[in-house]
C-alpha cells in the first residue's frame, strides 16, 4: 500500500508540503525501488507548472516534473544535456524519471545533475511562503544532503541558454544500458578573441557530490591556447592532487585514472 497526496496545483502541493511530513514524488524511479516503509508521498506529476519547459532571455527553464523523455524531444534543451539524458537507464525509466527527482535523490551519480553543475545552472525552490534561487553547487551540501527545507519543493532547473555548445561528455557505466554511472564527466570550453573564456570540468559519481574546481578552472581563463598548453601538465597535476575519490562499485584508483584520462582528453579536444 502506498499512501500519499495527489495534487493538481502547485499551491496545494506547497500547502501540504508545509503542513505534513511528506516525501516529494516525481517519477518515482528511485523511490519505488527504495520502497520505504511508513512514509507518505506527495505526488507532483500532475502539476502543470512543473511539467513545462520554457525559456527566457537567460535560461532554459525545465520544470521539476519534466521527464527525461520529454526533455529529449524538446528543441530548447541543449545538446549537452541531451547527451547525458539519452544514456540514463533505459526508455521506461526515461519516460518516468524527472529532473526534480534526479536532484532530490541527492546522488552524485545523477546524470542530469552533472550537466547542471558544469553549466552553472540554478534551481528555483519554493515553500508556501517564499521562493528562492540557488546555485546547483550550493544546493548539494554533502552525500545525500541538500539545501532543501522540509517545507520546500524544487520547482525548476535554470539552465544557461548560451555557452554550452563546445563540450565533452562521457559516461562510464558497468554496461551499455540500465547502468548507474561509475564515472561521468562533462567539460565545457569557450574562447573569445583567441583567449579561453570558459574551461569548466565536472566529475560525477566519484565522490559524495559532483566535483568541480572553479579555482583551478580560473587559472586557465584569459590564456591563449598556446599558453594553456604550456600550463597543461601542471594543471592536470593540480587536479590529481585535489581529487580525493571514494571507493564504490569500482576502486578509487580506477576512478581517478579515468577522471584524469577524460580531463586530458577534454583539453586535447580543444587543442590544449
Amino acid at each position, binding site marked *: 500500500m502506498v499512501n500519499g497526496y495527489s495534487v493538481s496545483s502547485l499551491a496545494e502541493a506547497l500547502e501540504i508540503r508545509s503542513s505534513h511530513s511528506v516525501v516529494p514524488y516525481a517519477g518515482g524511479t528511485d523511490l519505488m525501488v527504495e520502497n520505504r516503509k511508513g512514509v507518505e508521498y506527495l505526488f507532483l506529476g500532475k502539476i502543470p507548472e512543473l511539467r513545462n519547459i520554457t525559456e527566457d532571455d537567460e535560461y532554459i527553464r525545465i520544470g521539476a516534473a519534466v521527464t527525461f523523455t520529454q526533455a529529449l524531444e524538446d528543441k530548447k534543451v541543449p545538446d549537452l544535456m541531451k547527451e547525458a539524458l539519452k544514456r540514463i537507464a*533505459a526508455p521506461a525509466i526515461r519516460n518516468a524519471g524527472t529532473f526534480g527527482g534526479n536532484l532530490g535523490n541527492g546522488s552524485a551519480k545523477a546524470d542530469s545533475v552533472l550537466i547542471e553543475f558544469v553549466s552553472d545552472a540554478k534551481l528555483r525552490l519554493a515553500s508556501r511562503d517564499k521562493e528562492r534561487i540557488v546555485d546547483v553547487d550550493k544546493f548539494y551540501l554533502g552525500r545525500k544532503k541538500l539545501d532543501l527545507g522540509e517545507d520546500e519543493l524544487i520547482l525548476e532547473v535554470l539552465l544557461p541558454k548560451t555557452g554550452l555548445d563546445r563540450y565533452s561528455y*562521457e559516461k*562510464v557505466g*558497468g*554496461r*551499455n*544500458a*540500465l*547502468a*548507474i554511472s*561509475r*564515472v561521468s564527466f562533462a567539460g565545457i570550453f569557450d574562447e573569445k578573441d583567441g583567449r579561453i573564456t570558459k574551461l569548466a570540468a565536472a566529475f560525477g559519481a566519484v565522490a559524495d557530490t559532483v566535483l568541480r574546481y572553479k579555482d583551478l578552472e580560473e587559472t586557465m581563463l584569459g590564456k591563449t591556447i598556446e599558453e594553456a598548453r604550456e600550463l597543461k601538465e601542471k594543471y592536470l597535476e593540480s587536479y590529481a592532487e585535489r581529487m580525493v575519490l571514494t571507493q564504490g*562499485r*569500482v*576502486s578509487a584508483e*580506477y576512478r581517478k*585514472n*579515468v577522471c584524469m*584520462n*577524460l580531463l586530458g*582528453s577534454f583539453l586535447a579536444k580543444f587543442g590544449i
Partner: protein
Amino acid sequence: MEKISQSVVKKDHAPKVSGRSIYVADYPSEGVLCGKLLHSKVARAKILGVEVPKLPEGYFYVDARDVPGDNNVNIVLDDTPVFSRDTVEYIGEPIAMICGPDENEVARLRDECRVNYEEMEPVLDFRSAEEKFFDYHFGHGDVDKAFAEADKTYEEEFETGYQEQAYLETQGMMAEPEEGGRMFVHGSAQCAYYIHGAVMRALGCGPTGVHIKQDVTGGGFGGKEAFPSILGCQVAVAARKCGKPVRCVFDRREDMEYTSKRHPSLCRYKAAVRDGKVTALDIDVKFNAGAYSTLSAVVLQRGIIASPGIYNIPNVRVHGSAVKTNTSPCGAYRGFGGPQTFFAVEMLMSHIARDLGKEPLEFKKAHLVKQGDQTSTCGKYHFPVPIPEMIDEVVKESDFENKRREYAKAQTGRYRRGIGMSMYFHGAGFTGAGERDLIKAVAKLRKYEDGRVEILASNGDIGQGVRTTFPKIVANELNLPLEKVFYEHPDTARVPDSGPTVASRSLMIVGELLRRAAIKLREQWKDGEEQEVEEHYKEPDFVIPFYIDKFEGDAYPTYSWAVNAIELEVDTYTGVSKVLGAYGSFDVGTPVDYNVVMGQMEGGFLQGIGYASIEKMDYDSKGRIRNNSLSDYLIPTTKDVPKLKCMLHVEKYPDGPYGAKGAGELPLVGAPAAYLEAMEQALGGIELNHAPFTAEDTLRAVMKEVG
C-alpha cells in the same frame, strides 16, 4: 530446413507473455504460512544456542530438531544439512525457519532471533584450502618422458571467478500436507525426482509419502538443479511441524548471496612442446566447492575431462580437486565445469602459439581431434568432428583473418581493437555411465479416448522449451497436429522418472525415448481407446563403458561442438570494452525447433560474454558476498552485444531424435577465451589469464603498459 526444425509458437508462450502463468509465489496466501530462513551471519562457528523471541499464536520456529527423518540432504554425498547441525560453515547457512501467517511479522521474529556463535577462523581463500571434498587423477601416455624430451616447456596459471545464474524468478518452494499424511512439495525447480528423493529422506517416509511437482519456472541455468532439494526439505519439514502449507520464496539478495553459483577455479597447466607441437599436458584443476560438497563431484568431473580441450595431445596427466572453504556452496551452472577448463586450455594454446611465432588459429588447427581419435579418458570420438568447417564459417562471417592481421599492427589511439577465437565441445548428456547406471530414464505416453496424447516424463520446462519440443517429436511420429499432444509440468505422483533436467540431456536422451515410444504407440494405435506405452533408456551399443574410478572409457556418447569469435574495441581511457561482434557456429545436431535453439544459442553466448567481462562477484574478508543485487552484479543487456551472430552447423547424432544432440549449455562455454584473446590483441599482444576481465582490469593493464 527439415520439417521438425521449423519453428512453432511455444506451448507456454501465451500464458507467459500475458502474465497468466502461476509461479510458486503466485498461489493465494490464504491458509499458507510464510517461511523465512534464519541464515548464519558468520562464516564458521559452533552454535551455542539460539534465543528465539516469544512467538505469537500460529507462529513456529523450525530447526534441525524438527526433521523427522535424516537431517542430511541427499545430493551426491549427504553432507549438506537440512538445517544446521551444531556448526555453521558459511555466511547464509540456514539455521532455522520461522513460519507464520504474516510476512512482516515473520521477518521481524526472524530478525529478533539471537544466535550465540563461538566463532572459528574461517577458510576463505581456496588457494590455501586444505580440505578436499574430491580428488581425482587420470591420464594417458608418458607425460614425464614427453617433458624430458621437450624442446620447450610452458607453465601457466589461469583463474576464473564466480558466476551467478541471475534467473528471473528467485528460488521458491512450497509444501502442503495432504490427507493421509502425504506431503506435496512444489515450486521453482529443474529436477522433480531429485527433490523427491531428498524430501523422502528428510521426512523419513517411503516414495508414496511425498510427491513433487514443478511449477512454472522462471529460469534455472543449473541453479535449480540441487538447491531446490535443500529448500524443498526445509519447507516440507516446516509444513510437517506446522500442519499447514508453508511457502518460502527468496528475495533477490538472499538468492544472490546464499544460493549456488559457478565454481571459481584455479588451473595450472604445464605443456611440453616438441617440433612445434604440444606433446604433453600436465594439468592441475582446483575448484572452490564452498562449504558443502553438493554437486562439486560431477562439476569437477566434467571440468577435468574437458581440460585438454579439443586437441589431440598424446600424453596427458590430469589432477582435479574440489576444496572446501567457508563460503556459499557452489553448484551447477550452464556448462558445468567446462567453461573453467576450456578457458584455461584455449588461452594456453594461444599463448604457446604466439610464443612459437604462430597464429593461434593455425596452431590449434594443427592439433585438432578428429573422428576415431582417442578422448582424454581413452574413449573414442565416434562421430565426425566438424570443427574445421565451423572454423571456416566463423572466419568468413567475422572476416577473422583480415581483422586479426589488421589489429595486430601497432595501435596508438584512444580506441583499440582485437579479435579472438575459441573452439570447444560440450559432452552431451550425463558424464560417464550416469545415464545407464544411475538415471535409467523411463518415459511414457498416454493416449486418451479422444485421441489426445499426454507425455509423461519428469523433465521440467525452464524456458528451454521442452513443453514444446517434446510434443513436436511425438506429434511428428504420430502424424498428429501439435495441439493433440501435450506435456504438463511434471508431478512425481503421475510421471515416471525420466531423469533430471540437466546436462543438456532432456531433448537428446528423453526426446529419443519419446520418439521411440511414439513409434510404438503408432504401431498399436486403436481409435477411441485409452492406451499407454513406455520406453526405457538403453545405452547405445557403440559406447565404450566408462569407469569413473579410472576415468576410462567414453565419458559421453557424443559431443556438441562450437567455434566462437569475438571482436572488441577497448577504450584505453576508461577501460570499457565494446563488443563489436560476437560470432558463433554451434553444432547441436538437428535443431528440433529452430527458434528455440537459436534463443538458447544467443542467450547462452551472451551469458558467456558476461562471464568473460562484467560479471564479477566476490566475498569480503569475512566471507560475505558483496555483489548481492542486480545493480551490484551486472549482467549484459542486448545493448551490450548488438551484433550477435549465431549459426547452426548440423552434424547429426544417430541416437538422438532426428539427429539432435545436447544444446542448452554449449553456447556459454567458449566466450571467455575468445573475449580474452581479443582483449590481448587490442592491448598490444600482452598475455592475460583471468576472467572476468573487467574495465578495471583493462585500465590497469593499459596503465602498466604506459608505465
